[in-house]
């Protein structure tokens, strides 16, 4: 295994483009090292991107949008004084991944590129409408987060391409987001079901909504039917029930060691209601 520490994204891309065999980018390493230790994936080329200037920065842009560096660990997102005010659901989704120790290393982009349908930060980012900047041999492009994973363990990134930033939109007024997951313990588990909700109100009425589900299909889902179930409502009981129904209907899960098809399908509905309620309360409440 060759280990590289490029000083720029261009250098990283050129290393990845010319590498043969298996290439992995290393940021927090909380998936790469686990796979290495268990002899699941031993990369031929390992490109440590943490020496690229600015990759740990969390920046609010002039228009209120956010740019999060690809090596910013979860702990730094949680500690950031403003990010969690704007996007509490995204910060919570990230924060739920692993232990305090894992939070010291794990990153949004690592979680995304590991391409697990159960990744906690991904439904939160999808609901938030986040995009990523992809840098490759042919320059850069912007891609919606939901378009990165294509199947468990697979992404739409081409050889030599890498993610160089995460972009969160400006929060704007009367809006809130939330992420909840179900796990059997209180910590340290992989999500059996995850749900992200992001919505905006006009008065008490929901005017915009994005609802995402994790661990219920081969990739994280952005479910328009869920959004439709609550847009135009005040999130009354009927709307919540329709939301739960839509969420369960969208599920295409598997039975595995973490949960059954039946359980996941049912709990997706329960979580969708609970998550939407938190997002709604946030949109109404103190956090903007």
């Amino acid at each position, binding site marked *: 295994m060759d280990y590289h520490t490029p000083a720029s994204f261009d250098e990283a891309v050129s290393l990845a483009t010319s590498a043969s065999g298996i290439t992995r980018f290393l940021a927090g390493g909380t998936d790469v090292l686990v796979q290495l230790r*268990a002899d699941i994936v031993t990369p031929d080329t390992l490109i440590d991107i943490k020496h690229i200037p600015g990759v740990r920065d969390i920046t609010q842009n002039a228009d209120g949008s956010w740019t999060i560096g690809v090596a910013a660990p979860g702990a730094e997102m949680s500690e950031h004084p403003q990010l969690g005010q704007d996007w509490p659901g995204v910060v919570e989704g990230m924060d739920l991944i692993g232990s305090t120790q894992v939070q010291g290393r794990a990153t949004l982009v690592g979680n995304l590129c590991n391409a697990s349908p159960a990744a906690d930060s991904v439904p939160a980012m999808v609901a938030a409408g986040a995009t990523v900047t992809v840098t490759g041999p042919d320059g850069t492009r912007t891609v919606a987060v939901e378009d990165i994973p294509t199947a468990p363990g697979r992404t739409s990134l081409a050889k030599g391409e890498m993610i160089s930033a995460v972009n969160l939109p400006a929060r704007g007024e009367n809006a809130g987001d939330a992420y909840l997951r179900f796990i059997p313990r*209180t910590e340290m588990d992989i999500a059996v079901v995850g749900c992200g909700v992001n919505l905006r109100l006009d008065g008490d009425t929901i005017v915009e909504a994005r609802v995402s589900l994790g661990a219920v299909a081969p990739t994280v889902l952005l479910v328009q039917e869920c959004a439709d179930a609550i847009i135009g409502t005040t999130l009354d009981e009927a709307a919540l029930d329709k939301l739960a129904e839509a969420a369960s209907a969208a599920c295409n899960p598997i039975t595995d060691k973490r949960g059954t098809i039946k359980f996941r399908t049912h709990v997706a509905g329960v979580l969708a209601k609970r998550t939407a309620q938190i997002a709604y309360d946030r949109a109404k409440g103190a956090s903007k």
Partner: protein
Amino acid sequence: MTRKTHVTATVNGDTVEYLCDPRETLLDVLRDRLNLTGAKEGCGTGDCGACSVTLDGRLVCSCLVLGVEAEGKQIETVEGLSDGDILHPLQQKFIEHAALQCGVCTPGVLVAAKSLLEKNPDPTETEVRYWLAGNLCRCTGYDKIIRAVMDTAADLREAS
């Protein structure tokens, strides 16, 4: 055989140099190359916390850090907790409260708890429990560990 990489880092205040294979973890390096066997490998997957150290002040699992990544970094391990022969208050409280039975998780728990108290000198029981959720202990049921950390925090607040 892969060519080894030369690394210079600071461990518990001492400058150390070592050669390591890029596949070796920081935990492998600490234990097998630097003879600092206080950090333990309980899982190798970041699930148990027995290998906890701080890397530039940030709590991490040393099994999830490569040895080569430590170049130029500051690392603190359980061996650096006490000040000479004066135990860190957490170490003393862990003995007093019997917050250890077999003691194999203890180095990681102590490093993690110290990191908590530096960040949050007045944690609630729930905060201590969640902060330490990544430090598995199979012997104690956590009760006495939580009490020892809370009691240390109270003493440190009183002293400051």
